[in-house]
Every structure is written in C-alpha cells, then in structure tokens.
C-alpha cells in the first residue's frame, strides 16, 4: 500500500529539487520552473493530507483540495507576471543569466 508517508517523501524530494534549482541554476527560466516545481510539491502534499487524513464523518477534508485550486491559480498568475518581467529584463539586458543581473548592489 502506498501510504501518506510515501506521498510526503515524494513531495519533499520534489520541493528540494525545486529549491535547489532556485538556488543553483543560472538561467532565469529554469529558476522560474523550479519555483513552479516547489509550488506543485506543496500541492501534492496538500492533496495527500486531504486524501489520507479523514475527518470525523469518514469523509476527506476537502478544504485542502480547494486550497490546491487556489495555489494553482496563483501559480498561474505568478508565472504570467514572472515571464513578463523576464521578457522585459531580456529586452533590457539581452541575457537571462542571473550573474549579469546584479544592479541591486550597495
């Protein structure tokens, strides 16, 4: 049987991969994708909790799943804005390499 724990482990691994990607990748598009991966990892664990932790009446607690919808929506909006910023940045700097985008220095 696949238990809650397995889902959580997968979610954790996905989250770590995403986090590592945000920290370590140099291409801005990959960073954005890793960000999405982190969000979806969170979604997975939410759904897993919803499915395996049954409420008092024997039915799953659907609040979590509704919350997942919220996250998907927000993620979509955020990606839209993020990609727009990326395109503008590319037009200004002609690069998507994070090392070259550091004008917020002291």
């Amino acid at each position, binding site marked *: 049987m696949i238990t809650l724990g397995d889902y959580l482990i997968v979610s954790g691994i996905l989250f770590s991969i995403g*986090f590592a990607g*945000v*920290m370590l990748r140099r291409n801005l598009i990959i*960073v954005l994708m890793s960000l999405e991966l982190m969000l979806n990892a969170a979604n997975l664990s939410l759904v897993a909790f919803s499915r395996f932790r049954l409420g008092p009446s024997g039915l799953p607690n659907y609040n979590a799943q509704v919350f997942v919808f919220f996250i998907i929506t927000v993620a979509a909006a955020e990606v839209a804005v993020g990609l727009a910023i990326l395109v503008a940045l590319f037009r200004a700097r002609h690069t998507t390499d*994070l090392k070259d*985008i*550091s004008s917020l*220095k*002291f």
Partner: protein
Amino acid sequence: MNFMLPWFILLVPLFSAAVITLFTRRWKALSSAISVVAVLVSFICSCLIFAHQSIRAAEFTWIGIDGVFQVPFGLTLDQLSRTMAVLVSGVGAVIHIYSLGYMRDDEGRSRYFAALSLFMFAMLGIVLANNFVMLFIFWELVGFTSYVLIGHWFYRDAAADAANKAFITTRIGDFGFMLGILMVWMATGSVLFAEITPRMSTLTGHSIFLTVLALLVFCGAVGKSAQFPLHVWLPDAMEGPTPISALIHAATMVAAGVYMLVRVAFIIQASQTALLVVAWIGTITAVMAALIATQQNDIKRILAYSTLSQLGYMVMAVGLASNEAAMFHLFTHAFFKALLFLAAGSIIVMLHHEQNIWSMGGLSRRLPITFVTFAVGALALIGCPPFSGFFSKDAILALAYERNAPIFAVALFTAFLTAFYVIRLFVIVFFGNPRSDVARESRESPPVMTVPLIVLAFLATFGGFAFFARNFLPLPVEKGVTILVPALAIVALIVGSGLAIALYRNRAADPVNIELLRRKFYFDEFYSWLINWTQELLARVSAFLDRWIIDAGAVGGSSRGTWGVGALLRLVQVGNLQGYAFLFGLGVIVLIYFAVFR
C-alpha cells in the same frame, strides 16, 4: 501731594532721561535744558523734604508673593537720606550747569545729558531706598550709567575699554553683595532695613556666619567705592568727560559704597573681625593710592588716586565703628573733590584737552578764578584749617588714634603723602613758567563754568564748620580731645607741603622716578596675567572640550557610528538574487523551527 513729593525727586530725572532718549535727541540744546531743569526740580524737592520733616512717601509692591517674598518699593526719609538727597541733587545740579559749558561743542550732548539724568535717578534711588533689593537695583543702575558716561567717547579704544573694566569690576563686587543680601534675607526673613535692624540683634552666637555675611555685604562697597583690591577701575574711568569724573567718581557714586556701609552698619558691627577687616582695607587703600599719586603725571589721574585715598579714609572710619566720622568726611569730600575736578576740567578745556601736568605751568596768572578755587579745594583736601577737610579728616585721625594705633600711624603717613602730592600738583600746574604753547595761550573759562567753581569753593570752605554741618549730619563726638592729633596732622601737612615745594619748584621734569609707584604697583599687569591664566585659559579649554570632545566626539561620534553600522550592513546587499533567496529560505526555516518546535 505729600505722599508723592519724595517720589518726584526720583521720577523727574527718570522722566527727563526717557524724554531725551525717545524724542529730543536731535535737538541738543533742548536736551541739555530738560536735563538741567529736571535736576533743579529734584534739588528743590529734596530741599523741601529736608525742611519739612514730617513728609512720608507712598509705597508700592514691586514683587510680592504672599507668605514667601515681599519686595516693596518705598523710600526711607531719615536725616541721613534727606541730607544725602540734598547733597547729591545739589552737587548734581552744579555739575549739570558746569556741563553746559564743558560739553558745549560735543556731538553726543543729548546722549550725555540723558545718561546724566538717568544717573541722578539711580543715585537718588540708592540714597532713598528703604530695602536691600531696591538698593541693589539702583546700585546696578548707577553702575550702568557710569558705564555709559565713561564710554561717552566710545570711538576711542581707551574709553571703551575703561567702561568695560569699570562695569565688570563693580559687577564682581556686586556678586559678593548679592550673596550677602541673600544671607541676610535668609537669616532675618526680610529685606527691609527697618525690619532687619531689630532682627539682626537676635542673631548672636553664629560668629563665623555673621563675619562672612558682613564681609560679603562689604564686597559691594569694595567694588563700588573702588577699595583694594577692586580699585583698578577708578583711574581708568578718567577717560570719561571731566564733569562725570567730578560727579560720579568723586562726589556721588563712589560715595554710594560708603553710604551703604553706614546705612547697614549694624550688619558690619555685628562682627569684630569684619570691622577690623574693613578698617584695614580702607587703610591699605588710602596709603596705596596716596603712594601711587605721588608719581602720576595726568592731572585727572592724580585726582582719581586722591579720591581713592580719601574713600579709604571713609571706609577706615566705618571700620572703626564711627558712622558719623565717615559721613562727615563724605560730605566735605563731595564738595572739595567735585571742586577740584571741575577746576581741573576748566584747565583741561582751556588748554584744548591737555591733561599732562608737565605741559602746564604758570596758570595762576592765566586762569585766576580757577587758580583760587583750586587752591581752596587743595587746601581742604590736605586738611588745612580752617577749610572743611581739616575738620573731617581730623575726626577720622582722632578716631584712629583712640582705637587702633597701627592704623593711626598709617593714616598719618597718608596725610603726609596727601599733602605732598597735592602741593606737587599745585606747584607744577600753577607756578613757574608755562611749559607749552597751550599753557601760554590759555584764558580763563566762561562764567557758566567758573560760577559753579565759586559755589563749590564756598561750600568747601564753610562746610566743615559745626554750625553749618550740624544741620545735616550728626557730628562725630570727640571724647577726651587732645591737642596731639590735630597737631600731628598739621605737622604732617607742613612737612609734606614743604617737601613738595622744595622738590618741584621751577622744574621742567620730574626729578623723582619710582617705577613701582609710577606703574601703580603693577596691579593692572597682575590682573591681566591672572585673568589670562584663569578665565581665558579655562575658556579656551572649555571651548575646545565643547567643540571637539562633546560635539565632534560624542555627538559626531554617534552620527559617524550610525553611518558605520549602516555601511557594514550595506555589504549584505551584493546584488545576487540567489543569495537573497537563500537567506530568505534560511530565515523561513529558522522561523518554522521557533514556531513549531519551541
């Protein structure tokens, strides 16, 4: 009307000063007239009050907090103050009229007469005040008007500096005076003379306290009457116009210190130590000033040091516990010293402002009235009978003989010196041949100046006789009169005069040259050195401390520190997006740790 009449003595000159300052500055003749009229009105009122003994004055509250502090403004009208009022306003009136002539060509005449009127207001206030605070107020105002008048020709550095010196030195005396007043108030609960007198007698047994109190109150007189060690301002004050030297620095303001001592004599007499100190300071001042005077060459300076010396005599008398003798000498001194100064002024102005006696000579022929009146004043000053000075100085000498032998010896020696320098002055200025062109071409002064001289000469001659003086003052009682004291005094007089005539007849320059005396015992140099090494040094150190340690150090330091911390923290901003994200994540983990597991 009766209640306000005494107030008119004060208020009319004040009103005159205000009117001149505000309105009539441009019309110099009008200003002079207003001032002279004001002082004459004061004089008439003083005489009226003198004649009608029963007039009382109205009083009002200057500051009053119930149960805590009361300072009324009222007038005391006993024989002492009535006499002084007549004296001050009378001599003041004479000098006002003299000033009309002396200051005829001066640009700042309006300013002069306004200040002169203000001075009359303040001096009469001192004389008529009925409590310590009111006395102090007028005391300070007298110092202020003296400053204005000494610095009348303010565009001259010497005058400006002299005015400053006078005010600051008297302020130092006032510092002690105010402290003394505070102590009196705490000890007796009142500032009114009438209330303090009975209460002081209950304060026995606190001898150190009473001594300190007496000496502090005496401090005020030391400053105002230019006693040692605060005497240094008076000779420099000669930078002012000569009528001012006559009025303020001979007849009235400097006498205010003595008057005050007499008024509050009960405070000083409460302590034997204080009396001794007062007497000795007076004696030291008298002899020191007389010594210095023997070597001075400016006619006004000689007279200034002579004033110092005579004031020393008065203070000595107070210290020997005889108010009557002190007041008697003050009274006669006012006449002959004012006379001498005005006569000197007459000489100065007729010699186109020449003041060095070695440029004069033979003036007995050229300025006869001045010569005669000056002679009268001089003889009175050296104590030659039958002039007034003889009686008053003799009273003091008799007192000293009776009560304190060392002081008597010094006082007698001073009398000898007085005769010496006065006759020296007299011989050099009036006899022999004129030593300069201005002396050769001089003429007698106009009547507006010589008439006041004659008036004062009369007073200097007859003022000492008992039948005259008795109406004004209680005369010193002479117990066990011996002929010894007057005889010794006359001997000293003759010896001194003889020596002076012998040394200075027909000379072109001074044969004697004692540097110590010529340089006034180096007091000015000593005080400059002292001030430089205390006040100025402290001031520079404090300024440095303030500018560089407190301001640049502490305040600037904290501002620079804040900048520094900011600069350090700024280094975190490296511009690396992923670095920020890492720190962000780290922070979240820490938060979760603290939120969930603690």
